């Protein structure tokens, strides 16, 4: 297959796939076409889509490549009545999701220990939206279920893979930072505040 033919076929495949197409999946469909050549064709395609006057783009999400609209066109797309915009995640949803994303695989108990509140309802909503999933069980007492993120999670936030998550802010251990020789105890006077 010529380079421009390969580009054309890949474009058509990305269009019909409706989900991120990995290099591997493309190679499978293209019956053993060289991965390097596929990568090159994808680059050409991406450049074509980055030309002025295009309403579409090729994005790399969830371990694959996918055609998507450009955000500048969003206002008009939203007026198409059949296009449903996803409901935003609630604050508790985002908080819980952040814990799942960074600590996965993680149990409900661990999530609740960090959040300080019951999280069953939030977890259920996230499961139903397929943003998280049950990935197994933790060994040991009670063998609690473990939660992790899904491919939809990556897609929802436009992430290539989990390594793209920004690093979680580290904090210093309390012991290191507490003023060493300062009196910890407050005077009784403070209590009148």
């Amino acid at each position: 297959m010529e380079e421009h033919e390969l580009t054309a076929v890949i474009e058509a495949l990305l269009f019909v796939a409706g989900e991120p197409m990995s290099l591997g999946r493309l190679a499978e469909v293209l019956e053993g076409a060289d991965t390097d050549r596929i990568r090159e064709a994808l680059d050409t395609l991406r450049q074509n889509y980055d030309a002025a006057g295009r309403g579409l783009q090729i994005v790399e999400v969830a371990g694959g490549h996918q055609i998507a609209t450009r955000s500048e066109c969003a206002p008009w797309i939203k007026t198409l009545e059949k296009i449903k915009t996803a409901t935003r995640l609630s604050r508790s949803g985002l908080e819980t999701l952040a814990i799942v994303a960074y600590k996965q695989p993680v149990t409900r108990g661990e999530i609740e220990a960090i959040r300080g509140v019951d999280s069953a309802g939030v977890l259920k909503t996230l499961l139903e939206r397929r943003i998280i999933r049950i990935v197994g069980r933790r060994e040991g007492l009670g063998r609690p279920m473990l939660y992790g993120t899904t491919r939809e999670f990556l897609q929802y936030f436009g992430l290539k893979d989990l390594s793209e998550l920004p690093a979680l802010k580290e904090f210093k251990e309390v012991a290191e930072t507490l003023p060493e020789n300062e009196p910890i105890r407050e005077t009784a006077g403070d209590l009148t505040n």
Partner: protein
Amino acid sequence: MDDLQTPYAVKLPAFEGPLDLLLHLIKQHEINIYDIPISLITGQYLEYLSLMTSLNLAVAGEFLVMAATLIHIKSRTLLPPSETNDEEDEEDPRADLVMRLLEYQRFKEAAQGFESRENEWREVFYRPAPHGTDGPTDEINLVDMSLFDLLEALRGVMERAPTRQGLEIVVDELSVQDQMSLILDRLEREESITFTALFDDDTTRLAMIVTFLALLELIRLKRVRILQAELFGAIRVWKSTNLQPS
């Protein structure tokens, strides 16, 4: 008039939980998180809780637990330094709480990062359906299939079949008792069965043994009789009543 009906507006920010509220208070009072003035924060915290109560808002249990924790920490700070313990061993009573606050804070910040990504990617649409729409799709990719999907499917199907009882699995045990009633059952429908036909349904050696034991038991109880009409002829099993009319 409106002003009279609503004499004052209390703007009560919503908090995700006690830790969230504490972080808010810490920020509001520009407090160093590593050196929290515990009595100030406890006072502020309890004030907030009483405000919630006066507004008839349900105060979740977690908030009360935290109130108790704060009061406990405060009481410990009031105790004179213990003389028996080494100074080094003595732990700051606030340490646990500070660790929890710091841990919670980083996920709260990460969640804010998620929110801005969400806003950005909500403007991007795919084909045929835009991503992240609510509700289950008709088909599911095997790669994405999760245990939750399986449980949801089971729950759905069970809900749709509420009246059908007796769905309990028959444990596949071969009991002699069962085999006995099966034989008697057959003898109700057929006058007699040949000995070999008894084993027609048995696929395993164990099943055959069970059938044979069942037959022996039935003979012992005189519920069936076996007859061989001629030498080397077929052995037939008869129900006893057929032979011994009462």
